[in-house]
């Protein structure tokens, strides 16, 4: 009855098969990629209590029709020219020096009939109900790109690195909190130089 040499050895030969089975199960049911996209804020439904008067010259209107054509500031425009036009508008800095709105970091044309300063400039985007979503995203991408290009320029001037890279590092949860605190002020500062004011007006229903 007594066993010799301790308990019998359990055959572990099928362990690998079991582990492979689990591995394949996890490979099939999981996805590795994280999503990416364009972040946007919607305007609140309740209108603000005080009606703000905005000068027409501070608004940059972009209209997309159902065929995907663009009307920018009452002018038919190609999509590839949109970014340059938006940047010229944002960076204009039309206020004369000495006034409170004067923009000392703008490198634009200082055209008095265009936007006063980046903090005043607003981009208004309108689209038709039949506009294709792909076109809309391209337009959004170009407008966000215009802001990012200008912010990168200022971040390069102030801190010697790109704004998008700084923001990415700031938003990454794996960045140590010490570095994030440091970045927070820098990111804020650049954001305030070119605040993103992108208004998405109601979709036009009329043809």
């Amino acid at each position, binding site marked *: 009855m007594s066993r010799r040499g301790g308990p019998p050895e359990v055959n*572990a*030969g099928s*362990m*690998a098969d*079991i*582990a*492979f089975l*689990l*591995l394949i199960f*996890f*490979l099939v*049911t*999981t*996805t*590795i990629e*994280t*999503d*990416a*996209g*364009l*972040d*946007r*804020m*919607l*305007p*609140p*439904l309740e209108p603000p209590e005080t009606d703000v008067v905005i000068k027409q010259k501070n608004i940059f209107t972009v209209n997309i029709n159902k065929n*995907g054509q663009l009307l920018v500031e009452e002018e038919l425009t190609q*999509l*590839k020219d949109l970014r340059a036009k938006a940047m010229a508008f944002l960076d204009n800095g039309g206020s004369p020096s000495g006034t409170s709105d004067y923009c000392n970091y703008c490198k634009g044309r200082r055209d008095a009939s265009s936007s006063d300063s980046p903090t005043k400039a607003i981009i208004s985007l309108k*689209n*038709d*109900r*039949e*506009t*294709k*979503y*792909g*076109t*809309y*995203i*391209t337009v*959004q*991408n*170009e407008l*966000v*790109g215009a802001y*990012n290009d200008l912010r990168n320029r200022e971040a390069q001037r102030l801190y010697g690195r790109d704004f*998008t890279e700084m*923001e*990415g590092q700031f*938003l*990454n*949860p794996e960045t140590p909190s010490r570095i994030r605190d440091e970045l927070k002020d820098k990111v804020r500062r650049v954001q305030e130089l070119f605040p993103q004011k992108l208004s*998405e007006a*109601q*979709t036009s229903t009329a043809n």
Partner: protein
Amino acid sequence: MGKFNKKKDGDLPAVSTASLPDIVFMLLFFFMTVTTMKDSSLMVQNTLPNASEVKKLEKKDRVLYVYVGKPTSQYQKVFGSEPKIQLNDKFASVSEVGPFILQERAKKPQELQNVLTTALKVDKGANMGLISDIKQELRKVNALKINYTTYEGDAFRNLQ
């Protein structure tokens, strides 16, 4: 000489596979930690548009997903081929988006309820009319932070 004769007639020694389970388990744990579960199966065509100025959507627990697109071929007989909204595992109408967001928000922990993002995964062929309606619904329930989920790439490829 006689001492070494033994090996000549023997076969190749068997390679020990004792450490194979360890290796496979290591792989398994690696995949378990770096991946996330698929939460719902898609019932709509979902070719996302491309964009270059993208931000990563970190922290999956703070994201609610809304899918829009044409029903896939197996559902087209029943639901038609017009773009539809998919919430979790079923098709929904525009008016159901608001209640869905409120319901999902209530499931989240208290401290996350104000920082939720709604990710709109929309097929690039969909019309903006439907998207505008969804955005209007989201504004009604005060879910103002949205993310147009896209692939990373050249935005001008969307136009083709």
